[in-house]
């Protein structure tokens, strides 16, 4: 079953730049997909449209049954509760502990206290940070901070995890740690993962679905793909 379906999607920014041209694709539930492409290929725009940070100018985007393209600003939170998002720059709250950072995601949607505690501990265990729950972000390495961000993204059991260059700030070794965590989440929780990256080593090693974008157009969609330099 498809979790995400895009039909003839076009995104033109108000400054006249077109980031995505006529993109149609479907992503299956439980899959792990890389979105690759050079700078300006539109991969970030694609991710942003999936969590409705940007609206497509044309076409249809369905995420988990929600018509994202037509979602009103007031209703965006309904979509956001169904998915988790991880960024290159972690986006943690510096004055809150690891535990509080992860719990924050549940607190602001009004989850009960007991449920928050249970889910936060499970999520932190899944990313291997259960021993650091009382640390503050600046006491952690970059890789650990990204794992906190992942824990926060999955704490609400989302169907979909969107990652925008999650390893962009990390060295190859830490990057592979993050990939292991993500693969583990994909397998054990069945979370669909879409990850935008330009890290060739990771894509080649993971052997997952690969969507290749070039200048806003889909040039390749392979099941067990590798990073194809020529296509980019």
């Amino acid at each position, binding site marked *: 079953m498809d979790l995400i379906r895009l039909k003839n999607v076009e995104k033109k920014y108000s400054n006249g730049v077109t980031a995505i041209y006529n993109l149609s694709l479907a992503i299956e539930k439980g899959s792990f997909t890389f979105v690759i492409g050079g700078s300006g290929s539109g991969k970030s725009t694609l991710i942003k449209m999936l969590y409705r940070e940007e609206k497509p100018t044309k076409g249809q985007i369905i995420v988990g049954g929600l018509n994202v393209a037509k979602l009103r600003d007031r209703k965006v939170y309904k979509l956001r509760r169904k998915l988790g998002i991880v960024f290159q720059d972690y*986006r943690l709250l510096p004055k809150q502990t690891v535990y509080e950072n992860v719990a924050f995601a549940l607190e602001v*949607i*009004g989850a009960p206290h007991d449920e928050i505690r249970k889910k936060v501990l499970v999520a932190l265990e899944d990313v291997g940070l259960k021993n650091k729950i009382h640390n503050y972000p600046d006491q952690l390495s970059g890789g650990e901070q990204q794992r906190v961000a992942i824990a926060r993204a999955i704490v609400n059991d989302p169907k979909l995890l969107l990652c925008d260059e999650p390893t962009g700030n990390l060295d190859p070794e830490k990057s592979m740690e993050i990939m292991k965590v993500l693969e583990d989440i994909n397998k054990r929780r069945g979370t669909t993962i879409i990850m935008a990256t330009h890290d060739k080593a990771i894509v080649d090693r993971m052997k997952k679905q690969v969507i290749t974008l070039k200048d806003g157009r889909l040039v390749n969609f392979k099941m067990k793909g590798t990073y194809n330099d020529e296509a980019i």
Partner: protein
Amino acid sequence: MKPFRMLGRSIRDAFKSVIRNFSLSLASISCITITLVIVAIAIITSFNVESFTKEIERDLTIVVFLENDTTEEEAAELKKSFEDMPNVDSIEFESKQQVKEQMQQESDVFNTVLSEWSDEESPLRDTYKLKVKDATKISKDAKEIKEFDNVSSVSYGEGMVDRMISAFESIEKITYIVVIALVLVTVFLIINTIKLTISARSREISIMRLVGASNITIKLPFIIEGMILGAIGSIVPILFTTYGYIAFYNHFDGHLYSEVIRLVTPYPFIYQSALIVLIIGIIVGMIGSAGAVRRYLKV
């Protein structure tokens, strides 16, 4: 209970924010304090003015002097036409004998002078004393009555009453204008305070949006923060109202200048005023923060 949990969280966040940005909060709080002190004075003044305007109005009487040769039938007819006037509240007849007796009792000088006159010579007249419902129409009524048959003259404390009423009215208008101007300044200051707390928490807000907090969840802490600023700002004005008014009341022994201008008794008046001040403070705070949220929090 989800709504209560969210409300609790918002209140906690709001208090944290007030403390975290204390120097800024203090500016708003002092502005609210000044505004509310003046609002409190305005409330106290207008309640008192209203109270003694009513008092004076209740005592306002049109005295109608009848012609000397008015017969009893004519007097009764006159009474009927007074009863037909919509603004007349009560009618009281005083014959010249009654007036004479009253005056004789008042002083010895009157007593000796009046006892020398016989009934025919007496300058005194039979009178009707009319109480009116609405004091603002008193001069119109007096003019009308003067045209009636058998009425020699009419008196109602003319100019003094009119002047007093219009003076009170202009005092009230001026206080309203001052209060409105101050409220506007305060709202503006609160908007700025909340704007800065919003920018200080922009990272938190963006994360809240990402993880699916609803708009109301994001906005509520800021609106509550404004209400807290308003409530804190009303503490001094409330103390001022309660203790200040009691002291004022005791100092003047409950009336100003003469017994006519009686002050409103402090209890329960001060509690009502304090409550009004608190509510105004909270509402002004809320309006300011709602304005800031609408303008600077794009959700």
